């Protein structure tokens, strides 16, 4: 397939400017999210969370950043230096790239690739390298176990994640994100593609390795898993990558299943942001509520339950699409 970039309404400079803006907004959003998540968890868990610095404790973000920036940039002598440094950058870059295909409104997007969805999947797959290499390069047994778990988890969940989205593609007839949103004018994909949504949701949590699927990290088992040896800015990068991943997955979920920017009265961008916000809150709620399955149980769930479910969904969607076309 030839890659086609759809003409955007903006000039080249405007596009670059907007790209930079999204870059900063995503990083800023991820930073604020670290505070927001702690506050929200706090409220749900009968406690306060960080509430001391600035209004509602929002300056905690700045304090954390300052702390991480000024920490000793230490690389364990037994680690593989190059790989150890490369790992945290990989996840941030990959996640950032993922944001390029997100349509925030009919006019606001960086690029509209005709393979947008595939591009997104490719970028999230790249992020696996970060966890894997980080775990391997640390030369620490807990990190190694974390890396191993991550490899197994990602390979399995990558498969369902891709397949779960193919139903959406079938309904739309396009990989372009904008087309997918436009196709949802009559009905959001979450209704006909509820199975796809379900699988994508679970695969998405597994991809962003958050509780309940934070097995590569699993602090109660592997102390801190793949990032046991990381500290300072490199640790901050890993965290940034994780939160970027969370935002990205939420953006994708909204775009693919909840009608993207579509909605009455309010401007499209506002609708988009509101929806993403709700999905993020849902992810945080999941983290607060659910225990962690065992690693082999997660695999069993994936291959024995999720894969057949996805295939059934694909088959069903295919039949319906063909039948509708006559």
């Amino acid at each position, binding site marked *: 397939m030839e890659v086609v970039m759809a003409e955007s309404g903006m000039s080249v400079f405007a596009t670059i400017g907007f790209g930079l803006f999204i870059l900063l907004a995503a990083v800023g959003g991820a930073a604020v999210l670290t505070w927001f998540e702690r506050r929200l968890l706090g409220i749900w868990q009968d406690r306060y969370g960080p509430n001391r610095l600035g209004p509602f404790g929002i300056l905690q973000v700045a304090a954390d950043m300052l702390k991480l920036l000024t920490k000793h940039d230490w690389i364990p002598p037994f680690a593989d230096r190059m790989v150890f440094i490369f790992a945290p950058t990989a996840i941030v870059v990959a996640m950032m790239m993922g944001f390029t295909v997100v349509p925030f409104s009919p006019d606001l997007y960086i690029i509209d690739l005709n393979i947008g969805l595939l591009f997104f999947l490719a970028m999230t797959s790249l992020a696996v390298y970060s966890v894997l290499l980080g775990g391997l390069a640390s030369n620490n047994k807990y990190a190694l176990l974390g890396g191993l778990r991550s490899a197994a988890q990602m390979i399995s969940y990558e498969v369902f994640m891709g397949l779960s989205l193919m139903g959406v593609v079938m309904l739309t007839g396009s990989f372009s994100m904008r087309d997918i949103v436009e196709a949802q004018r009559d009905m959001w994909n979450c209704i006909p593609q509820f199975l796809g949504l379900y699988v994508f949701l679970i695969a998405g949590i597994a991809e962003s390795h958050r509780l309940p699927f934070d097995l590569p990290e*699993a602090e109660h088992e592997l102390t801190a898993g793949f990032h046991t040896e990381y500290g300072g800015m490199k640790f901050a990068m890993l965290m940034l990558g994780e939160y970027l991943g969370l935002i990205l997955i939420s953006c994708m979920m909204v775009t693919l299943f909840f009608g993207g920017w579509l909605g009455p009265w309010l401007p499209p961008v506002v609708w988009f942001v509101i929806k993403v916000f709700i999905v993020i809150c849902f992810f945080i709620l999941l983290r607060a509520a659910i225990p962690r399955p*065992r690693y082999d149980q997660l695999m069993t769930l994936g291959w024995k339950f999720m894969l057949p479910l996805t295939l059934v969904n694909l088959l069903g969607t295919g039949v319906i699409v063909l039948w509708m076309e006559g």
Partner: protein
Amino acid sequence: MLNAEVTHNNTANGTIVDDLIARFGAELFVIQPTPDFTPTLWVDRKNLLDTLAFLKEKFPMLLDLFGVDERMREHKPEVAGDFTVVYHLMSFTPCEEVRIKVAVSLPDLDVPSAVSIWPNANWYERETWDMYGVNFTGHPNLRRILLPPTWEGHALRKDHPARATEMEPFSLDEEKQRQEQEALLFRPEDWGMQRATDDTEFMFLNLGPNHPSVHGVFRIALQLDGEVVIDSVPDIGYHHRGAEKMGERQSWASYMPYTDRIDYLGGVMNNMAYVMAVEQLAGIQVPERAKVIRIMMAELFRISSHLVFYGTFAQDVGQMSPVFYMFADRERLFGIVEAITGGRMHPAWFRIGGVAQDLPVGWDKMVKEFIDAMPARLDHYQKMAMDNSILKQRTVGIGEYTTQEALDWGITGASLRATGMDWDLRRDRPYGGYDQFEFDIPVGSKGDCYDRAAVRVEEIRQSLRIIRQCVDNMPEGPYKSEHHLATPPPKERTLQDIETLIHHFLSVSWGPVVPAGEASFPIEATKGINNYHLISDGGTTSYRTRIRTPSFAALQQIPLISNGLMIPDLIAIIASIDFVMADVDR
């Protein structure tokens, strides 16, 4: 009969001694009378294993095994040598105990090992070797257990200093440092592990002493094939503070705060075990009101300890939130404890012969508020944690053991009841006034991680029931005994007559002089059977304080139930057995 509490022990006295004499002949045994009327028999080491094997049929559990240094003891039985090894056995239906003692003298400190009869003798014998240098012949792995391998001497011997100030100033020269470092090196062979087989090279992982899920400083050396635990060897002693040695220098009354810190989640439950044993020795009768106050406080602490267990159990299988709710409840509970005792985690509030003060005005309102609110919260937690399908997946069928295994390994308390054994000291041999209360004993069926948690959760509800009965039926009367050894003595009349003043002065400055003898009193503590074996030589301090804790036994059993499972299962098992490292190492 001085004390109504002690009648129960008496029942075994006739029968088991008769049985033994009928089997082996009277000349083999010397019977030692004790204030607690637990049959105590001295036997020669030649006949030890036969005697123990015979007794095992009737007494399935080796409750405790420990040493005593008899060399400085004035009131010792004639048969005693330099050292004594005590085997404390227990049966369940009927609930009876018996002590077997073996005397050994320097330089020949050999005693045959009982590991072949009870597997849990393993760690106890290691501890006795560590502390006294008693050599157990035939022991598979007689190494130090609580003290570091480089330690010199045997710490509980009377000639070993108790304080650092009694020793030479410490210095670490290079040679010594090299030795210490050498001792820290991990060699799988020393731990009985193989480095590799023909087709697999194993990974060795030190889980602990510092790890988020080992609940303190506890180390398990793991032999791993991928994430599967091939073999695991628990290593303890990182929390050892010499609590038993301290018992030999503190007065009978001033040892109370140390007991609080044994099972540091159990608070006054530890005081309970200790004062019961002292009261046996001294023959003190506790007034009714004090009994009910004690039971109420002990049950409050049982709830507190179980709440911590519940929260951390959910947390260790990866559930983030429950622990916060349960700690908030525990905080409310500590509010009550604080109002009544002035302390929170370690109130040290029980006294020999009663409790420290009477209950404050308005205590019943506070307690009622708490017990009224708890059941609804427990329902909520049930839905949140215990009914969660992932939590069940992680814990059902994991770390199973049978009742027989539990008895062989000295497992007591909720972990024993989880196997289906319907037995609780509070009901089956009521002490301290528990016979006046109505409550049920929750029992599990499979003895897996889930059952162990479920039993404890239900115990919280039963404890609430007991506390409600305490509140509704709190008797009037004194909160401390009038007995002359009750400490501190009642002060009211001290300014009226000189005799009382003198007694008060001596009892407070020196401490009470407890009559010579030895006694122990097992109680159903938060984590299982806690038992203080106290020997008095007729002085103001204990001659030997032996603390039998439930956590020690629980940790020894970990390899049995976790080998062959995965690391996350091991974490679930550790979370489910409810131990506290201070309770293990003392």
